[in-house]
């Protein structure tokens, strides 16, 4: 026991170890920890910013949604207006078409009537001639009596 030259060995060893720690151990660890601290601070700041941005985006989205709803309501209103306009127009068109069809049909009917009347006249004239021929017991010469026939036809 007691102090001896080991002391110097220990002091020397101690100084070497402190030097090593200061040179090779301390700086990288401190640097890594500082960097991580910075990273965490940045991360937290980014998270805050993100949250704020989210709130802003939410507000913006609500605004856009409101606008869109208004626009949609406007479009629906316009569409229903346009729809009723189209219906009105169609009704008008249909009425006009219907009337046109009716008048065309009437004209056709009239034409048919006239034609039937003409045919009937000719038939009646024929029957009348045959009847007259029977009564006279002789044949009426169509050529000789053509003038008479036409006169009869016109009369009927």
């Amino acid at each position, binding site marked *: 026991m*007691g*102090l001896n030259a080991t*002391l110097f060995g220990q*002091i020397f060893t101690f100084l070497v*170890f*402190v030097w090593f*720690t*200061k040179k090779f151990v301390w700086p990288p*660890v401190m*640097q890594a920890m500082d960097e991580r601290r910075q990273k965490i601070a940045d991360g937290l700041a980014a998270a805050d910013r993100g949250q704020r941005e989210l709130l802003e985006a939410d507000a913006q989205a609500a605004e856009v949604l409101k606008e869109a709803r208004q626009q949609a309501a406007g479009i629906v209103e316009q569409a229903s207006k346009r729809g009723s306009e189209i219906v009105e127009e169609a009704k008008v068109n249909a009425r006009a078409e219907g009337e046109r069809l009716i008048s065309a049909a009437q004209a056709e009917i009239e034409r048919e009537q006239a034609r039937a009347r003409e045919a009937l006249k000719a038939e009646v004239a024929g029957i009348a001639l045959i009847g007259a021929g029977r009564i006279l017991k002789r044949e009426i010469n169509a050529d000789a009596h053509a003038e008479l026939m036409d006169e009869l036809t016109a009369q009927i």
Partner: protein
Amino acid sequence: MASAAQSPTEYVTHHLTHLSVGEGFWTFNIDTLFWSWVTGIIFLSLFYMGARKATAGEPGKLQNFVEILVDFVDNSVADGFHGPRGFVAPLALTVFFWVLLWNMLDLIPVDLLPWLASTVGIHYQRIVPSADMNATFGLSLSVLALIIIYSIKGKGVKGFIKELLFHPFGSFPLLVPFNIILNVVELIAKPVSLALRLFGNLYAAEMIFILIAMLPAWIQFIPGSAWAIFHILVIPLQAFIFMTLTIVYLSLAYEEH
């Protein structure tokens, strides 16, 4: 017990003898020097491996361990020392961890390593450096040198001498000798108390382990484990006290009173 033929006194004396070379003052305790280097190299390689691959990203387990200790020491230094920490913090880390490992060697069964050494022909082996005054005074005298260096760094040569001459009683010429005596005693008391506190604790603990080892084998585990468990508290506590007082002394030296 190393051998049945030894008397208790011989056994204890044998356990308290250093493996040494040299004569008188120029004796080197090989075991203290060797185990200091072993523990120091364990400390440095562990921390160097952790520090070398230190990243700001997700730390590995070793890096985590290193960071926890570095952060703990850095905070202790920041609390106690208000100057630049570039040197004091690594110093404190070295003191803390080195002393911690020294003290831990005390938990290795007292007869194990001496017995292993004796099988290769080495007859004396004291493995706990902090139970050797040379190791503890080696640290504390280095701290004394740093106290003086930091006094001069913090207050300048003039300030340091002024403090030695005129502090604490004042600058009245008759009081100067008393001031000097008091300051020198204070300056010497610091390393002596530092060294003796650590030495005393660990020497006593080692002694008790040696005494326990002399009990009959079947009963040893009761006092042995009780003392080891208690000693687990002493080991980091003494390391922490040594570190904290080093920081406090340097802080007192560095700052103006």
